[in-house]
């Protein structure tokens, strides 16, 4: 009986509330907020003494004026981002090579002789050392140095307060394509790692715009794809111009691809907001925080621990199984042919239409877990399918050559042309996100549908773009 009474009382409270809501009307929330702020202002007035005179010279205001000015805003932004990328690319070269030589030239032979001395069977040695170990070694040597440079630099900019200004400047563009200004922030994060960029989309309030930001994040060229872009640009595009221009032209080619990525992200955002994710660009409110001098040592530490190691660890976990698969497809044979060769021969005609080749397609399928192993996989597969002797480490063993010239030799021997190079660069920009990113997309959207869209939309665009580039290229070449 008591319980019944209680339930009745409780329902009475709720129905009173409902009736009062009709009474108070729609303005309730407004009135409440007004009350809170008027209370707050009364309290603040009693205890806060503001400076009698406004500051006349304020470096922060001046800096803001410069960073957001009509003529300097964008050039400064491109300059800063350009310097960050340049430092990342340049600075990562030497340590990358050192780590690679340590893992490949020092540790790898030791492991090999160790396994020989304990008498590991051929397949176990292959799967573990030539497959799993090498994949891990590649991921670390290719990913760690650029990330250890890029993330701290990016974090310094973030701590200083520059990123919200970028977002503020870019909002005009994003508004026009029906997206959120903060998408600029998440896109910039994507240049480091798409998975990190997708997690960062949480700062976007509106679900529609958040989804757009997630789907288009893959168009930011991530760290795992930079090495591919740089290597291919140097080999094929640098080689197409006089030697003294080679460096600058190949660098410009990479920047061009990155900018193309931004253009695609804007185009796709526009397309989405006009079709499946229809709607007007909703509200955008962004606080521009005051500039704060970054604390460099702490930033280095936290960004290394927080982002670099985190992202690296994840990549390693995904790369190890991929390494095993690479070794297996290079060594398991059906009717005398390795699985890799069978697939390459079978997919070559289709790949030809796209201006690519079967090796590239297979490499991208195997490298879904981690983009950074694309280049070593391509080299391994090319050597294997050509049966070149005297180069490489053996069937199904990933390797990267010490000199770019040697890499070029192999690729040219594999039938690569300038067109293959260009299309590989385009395809590297426009293909499915890596498995970590796909998983992150699923975690953020909790929707299979949108995960599939984000996965297959770029690959579809990649096929369309490379197809047209290849055919038009050949058409012009045939004239």
């Amino acid at each position, binding site marked *: 009986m008591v319980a019944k009474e209680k339930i009745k009382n409780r329902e009475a409270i709720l129905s*009173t509330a409902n009736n009062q809501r009709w009474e108070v009307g729609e303005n309730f929330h407004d009135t409440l907020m007004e009350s809170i702020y008027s209370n*707050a202002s009364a*309290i*603040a007035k009693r*205890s806060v003494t503001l*400076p009698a005179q406004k500051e006349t010279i304020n470096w922060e205001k001046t800096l803001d004026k410069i960073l957001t000015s009509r003529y300097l805003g964008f050039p400064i932004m491109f300059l800063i981002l350009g310097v960050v990328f340049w430092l990342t690319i340049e600075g990562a070269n030497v340590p990358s090579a050192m780590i690679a030589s340590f893992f490949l030239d020092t540790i790898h032979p030791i492991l090999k002789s160790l396994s020989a001395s304990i008498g590991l069977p051929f397949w176990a040695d292959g799967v573990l050392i030539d497959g799993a170990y090498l994949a891990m070694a590649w991921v670390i040597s290719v990913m760690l140095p650029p990330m250890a440079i890029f993330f701290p630099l990016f974090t310094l900019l973030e701590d200083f*307060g520059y990123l919200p200004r970028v977002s503020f400047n870019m909002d005009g563009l994003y508004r026009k394509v029906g997206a959120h200004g903060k998408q600029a922030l998440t896109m910039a994060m994507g240049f480091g790692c798409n998975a990190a960029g997708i997690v960062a989309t949480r700062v976007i309030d509106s679900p529609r715009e958040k989804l757009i930001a997630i789907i288009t994040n893959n168009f930011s060229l991530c760290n795992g794809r930079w090495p591919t872009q740089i290597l291919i640009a140097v080999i094929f595009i640098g080689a197409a111009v006089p030697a003294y221009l080679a460096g600058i032209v190949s660098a410009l080619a990479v920047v061009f691809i990155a900018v193309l990525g931004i253009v695609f992200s804007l185009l796709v955002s526009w397309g989405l907001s006009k079709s499946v994710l229809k709607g007007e660009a909703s509200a955008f409110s962004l606080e521009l925080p005051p500039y704060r001098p970054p604390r460099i040592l702490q930033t280095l530490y*936290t960004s290394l621990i927080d982002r670099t190691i985190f992202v690296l660890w994840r990549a390693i976990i995904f790369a190890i199984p991929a390494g095993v698969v690479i070794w297996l497809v290079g060594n398991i044979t059906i009717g005398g042919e390795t699985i890799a060769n069978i697939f390459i021969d079978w997919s070559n005609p289709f790949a030809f239409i796209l201006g690519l080749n079967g090796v590239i397609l297979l490499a991208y399928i195997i490298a879904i877990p981690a983009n950074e192993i694309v280049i070593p996989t391509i080299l391994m597969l090319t050597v294997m399918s050509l049966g070149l002797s005297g180069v490489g480490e053996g069937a199904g063993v990933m390797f990267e050559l010490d000199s770019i010239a040697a890499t070029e030799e192999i690729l040219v021997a594999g039938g690569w042309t300038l067109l293959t190079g260009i299309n590989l660069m385009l395809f590297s920009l426009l293909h499915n996100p890596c498995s970590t990113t796909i998983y992150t997309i699923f975690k953020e959207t909790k929707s299979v549908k949108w995960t599939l869209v984000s996965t297959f939309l770029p690959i579809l665009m990649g096929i369309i773009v490379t197809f047209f580039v290849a055919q038009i290229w050949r058409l012009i070449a045939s004239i």
Partner: protein
Amino acid sequence: MHNAGNLKRLGIDMSNFDFVVALAGNPNTGKSTVFNNLTGLKQHTGNWPGKTVTRAEGGFEYNDNKFKLVDLPGTYSLLSTSTDEEVARNFILFGQPDVTVIVADATRLERNLNLVLQILEITDRAILCLNLMDEAGRHNIKIDERMLSKDLGIPVIPSVARYNKGMDELLASIYEVVSGKYVCKPYRLKSKSKELNVAVEKLTRQITEEFPNLPNAQWVALRLLEGDQSIIDAIRNGELGKIYSVEQNKTELETVV
């Protein structure tokens, strides 16, 4: 005078804690820095509003008591319907922390008070940590902490978390509140709108009748007028009464959180 020697940073070790401390505040006020100072953890702190989107937890030991520190997402308010605000609000309400430390930006006190006043409606055990005092000084902003403390009815601790200043005083104050040496008398909102006051009073009376132990009946009334489903549910299933009549029951707390 307490000194930092009493503080033992426990990082992510939060076993057998005696008290729960919630850390709330506007975005970009240095909340995460305070969190890192107390726990010894290195959570990333970016100069970018909305960095912390999930709840982070850490532990520290002070005066032989173990504390669990929960860093709530930074929000401007607790009245909107976004997820981060819901996380923060539900923890302060249902998680019943022993004390809620509100980190505020001393250079923009008035706008920060919006959140402070909302939190004071929910809980009666809170501390205001007035951070970025160095910035305030640089801008010639002076704040009378004692007056503020008197008006709000809670301790007010000035600090510069970036340089680890004011943390000892904050710890001492946390200890005073959780041990009951300092009894908060939180400021409660007064509205100018007659219509609103009538509705709130009517509802508050009815709620107090049903849940006499509730320390924040006015806030519950306000939430009902906003149509907040979690409060409606809490009234229907009587959870509201259960939470407040069982003071400081840790096992209870854990099942709720």
